[in-house]
Structures are given as C-alpha cells and as structure tokens.
C-alpha cells in the first residue's frame, strides 16, 4: 500500500503536524508548588492559562517550546472563569491560532500540555458535548463549555484543545467543575476574557442593581412582543441610586431583552452583563402593564 494512498498514515501525519504547530504555542507554566501546568501563547508577550494553577503573582516561571526559560508576572485574572493572563518582560512567543470553526460534537480533538521540559504531550479524543451556561465551582458563570473524552494528564490544565489542523478549540482546565472533571473553555470566550484582562487587568462585569425572578409570559404578552418567548424577568426590587433606578425601571416591570438578546432567566442576564457593556448605554426592553417599552440604561460595573 503506497503511503500517499493510505488515509491512516495521512491522518497520523496530519495529527503530528497539528501537535507540532499548536505545540509551538504551548508553554510550561510554573506558578504553584509541585504541580506544573500549561499555558497558551495569546500574544507575543502574553500567556493565557488556568487561574487555579496560578498560586503566586510574582516569580512565575515559563518554559518555552525551545526549552528557554522566562519569568512572567500576572497581568490579570478571572477566577469565575478560571482564566489568568501572564505577561512576559520581553516578547518572542508565537501566538496560537484559533480554529477556523467552533467545536462540533463528534469532531476529532487533541488535548495538549507541556507538563515538563521533556516536550509536548498529547491525548486524542472527540468533542463529546457542548454545554452552558453553567455555574462554576469558583463562583462564576461559564457561558459555554466543551467536554471531550481526551485524557487530562497531570499538568495539562491551561493547555489547548486543538482540532486536527492544529487550530485552538479551547483551553483545558480541571479547575472549573466540581470533582476536578476536565472541561474546555471555548476559544471565543477564552480570547474575549484574555482581551479584557489585557486591557483592564480584570473582567468587568455589568451591573443593573435589580432583584428579579423568572416569570412565564402569557400568550397575549408574547403577542404584544411580536415573538415567541416563554418567560421574562419580573423586577421585585431596585437598589437605590442604581443604573436601573436612574433609567426609570419600576418594580413590576418584566425585563424581556437586553441589547436585543432575550432574557428568559437570571442566568441569561448574568451572561449578557459579562460582556464588554460596562459604561455603555444599551436598550432594555420591558413589559409594563402588558405593553413593550424600550428604555435606555447605562450599565454600571459590579464591584
């Protein structure tokens, strides 16, 4: 059987290429005692890793794919999503490339890690499920996650999940779910957090100053909205001086959308407010006396 004609050899070579490509952007991160971890080069001087592996803010040591060592400091952390951004004093990393398409269930996936100076390590599997939002064991709300049947070897936390072309599908961590189950933070979300950490050193979370509970929308109210939406958020309390009060929201209003995205339960609102909305004036749609009303609200920052 000629090699070119054997698809098994072609697949094997492609996977080795993928590991080599993504491995060039996968680093060893030493920021806690005993257990090593991995990180992904996000920019030429920035490394994204899992927050739970960063137990100190200074004296963080990185080992690059070529074996050279660098020291890094903490640029910012988002404990809720278990992500931390490290900054090198000098540039020189080759940034990882995101996959062309988001992860799909059934797709071949490889988990990479650099747990030691001996070289890159890998494990093969498939994308098993996509999920979210889910409340994390770290007090956050993870908008989306990927689950795979790859083996999370020791030291893989903070490393990339890649597709068979070497594109990054997400960042692997065993620190998000209870019981140390490995999850993958999708690359879109991970990059978004990395960008926020680069700019502000933290992820700014929006704040409205309301207490709400989900409430079913009767058919007549859905008709008034002009769309099918099974539920909204009934306002049961508004904080004094809050953005919600300044915008003129009232107890009894039913919030149905924020910035054009429907709100059907409190998690929807948390997810929407997690984006880069702080300081912006965004349209809020409420049902007041059964009729839809558009109100502009300037999103505050949760402290």
């Amino acid at each position: 059987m000629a090699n070119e004609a054997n698809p098994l050899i072609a697949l094997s070579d492609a996977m080795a290429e993928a590991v080599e490509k993504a491995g060039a952007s996968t680093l060893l991160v030493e920021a806690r005692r005993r257990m090593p971890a991995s990180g992904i080069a996000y920019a030429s001087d920035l490394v994204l890793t899992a927050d739970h592996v960063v137990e100190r803010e200074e004296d963080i040591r990185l080992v690059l794919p070529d074996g050279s060592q660098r020291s890094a400091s903490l640029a910012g952390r988002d404990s809720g999503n278990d992500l931390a951004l490290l900054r090198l004093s000098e540039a020189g990393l080759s940034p990882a490339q995101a996959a062309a398409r988001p992860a799909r269930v059934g797709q071949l996936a490889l988990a990479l890690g650099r747990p030691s100076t001996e070289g890159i390590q890998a494990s093969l599997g498939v994308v098993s499920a996509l999920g979210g939002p889910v409340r994390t064991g770290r007090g956050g709300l993870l908008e989306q996650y990927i689950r795979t049947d790859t083996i999370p070897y020791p030291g893989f936390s903070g490393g990339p999940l890649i597709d068979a072309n070497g594109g990054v599908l997400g960042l692997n961590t065993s620190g998000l779910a209870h019981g140390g189950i490995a999850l993958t933070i999708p690359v879109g979300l991970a990059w978004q957090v990395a960008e926020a950490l680069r700019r502000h050193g933290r992820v700014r979370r929006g704040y409205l100053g309301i207490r709400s509970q989900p409430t079913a929308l009767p058919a007549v109210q859905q008709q008034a909205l002009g769309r099918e939406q099974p539920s909204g958020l009934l306002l049961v309390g508004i904080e004094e001086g809050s953005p919600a009060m300044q915008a003129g929201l009232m107890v009894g209003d039913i919030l149905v959308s924020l910035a054009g995205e429907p709100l059907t339960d409190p998690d929807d609102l948390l997810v929407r407010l997690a984006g880069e909305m702080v300081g912006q004036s965004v349209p809020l749609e409420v049902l007041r006396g059964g009729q839809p009303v558009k109100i502009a609200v300037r999103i505050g920052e949760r402290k």
Partner: protein
Amino acid sequence: MSQPTNPHDTGLPGALTDAAEEVVRRVQRSLVVLHNGRHGVGAGVIWSRSDGAGAYILTNYHVVAHGRQVRAALEDGSEIPTRLVATDEEIDLALLRIEQNGLPPAMVADSRQLRVGQLVLAVGHPWGQRGAVTAGLISGLSKAQTRGTRGEVEIIRSDVRLAPGNSGGPLVNASGAVVGINTMIVGGDQGIAIPSHVAQAFVEQATKG
C-alpha cells in the same frame, strides 16, 4: 452461521476503516500469546532473524520471569514450547526462541523518527482476548530512570488503553510497523512502551556472534 454480505464502506471513514483493518490483520499474524504457567499470560511479537531457522519472539521480561516453561500460542491455535535466549531486566525485555519455521515476522519501524501526535494501535491479549486492538496516539517521548547501569532509558508514552495482557505486545504505527513494546501502565491511563530501536539493539546484542 451465515455471513451477511456487507456493502463496502465508502468515503474517507470507509477508507480509514479499510486501512486500519489491513494494518490490524497484518500485526495479528505476528502476535503470539505467551502462557507462563501460574505466572500469567502476556503477549509477544515474532521478530525477524537472519538465518531463517525457527523464530524469535520479543516480549517483556516480566511476562516470562519466574516461569519454567513458557508456551507460545500461535495464530493457528497451536501451542509450542519456547526457549529463553536473553533477558534485560533493566529495560524489561526478553527474547525467546521457538523451533517453528515460516512464521511471519513483524515489520519494525525506526522509533527515533516518532513524533508526538502520530496515530498508534496496540495489539495484544487484554481481557483474555487474543488480538484485541486499542487505538490512540503518541502522547509523549521521554526518558525514564532505570535501576541498573544504564541509568535511564527512552520511553514512549501513549494514550492507548492497555490492560495487563498487553504486556510484551506490539505498539504499531499507521503502516503497521512496530514502534514499541507495550510494557506498563502509569497513572491508570497512560501506556508506556519501550521504543523499537531500543528493542532492536537488545535483540542484536543478544544474538551477536
């Protein structure tokens, strides 16, 4: 039992399956199951020998250790006695000899050319099932400390699922050539294999002169 006629698989998945089937069939022909009395069962690989008289079987030292009479079960079901030629406990390898001509030796790849991420298959005798196949990839290439004079030996890490009956059996690449001898499981989920170039050097040393 009547055989249902299977229409040939089509497309890339079908081609992959066909290729894997051919690789597995070839490797299974060079696999022997080693019975070591009450000391258990392991696997072995038929290793080529230049003079063509009889055959060598390469396996793990721990598969044949403590046994008085290790018997090799061949693919055709026959069971024949083996003779111990050489052992190297430090790298857990043993070479056996059987007086049977015409057995197909395994193809052997140069494991110094291995790359992390390459597809590998393990064929052995896990779960008491001869020739069972598990698949995965090369997880890592590293070195392990040894207790003997070498001090360290190169090892292959793979994420292939192994069971005790895989010991001494082949880890092969996508062309069906042996890249390593499956030797142990660490952490419950990582397979350790002795690279074929280390095994080849052991065989050459053992059969020299």
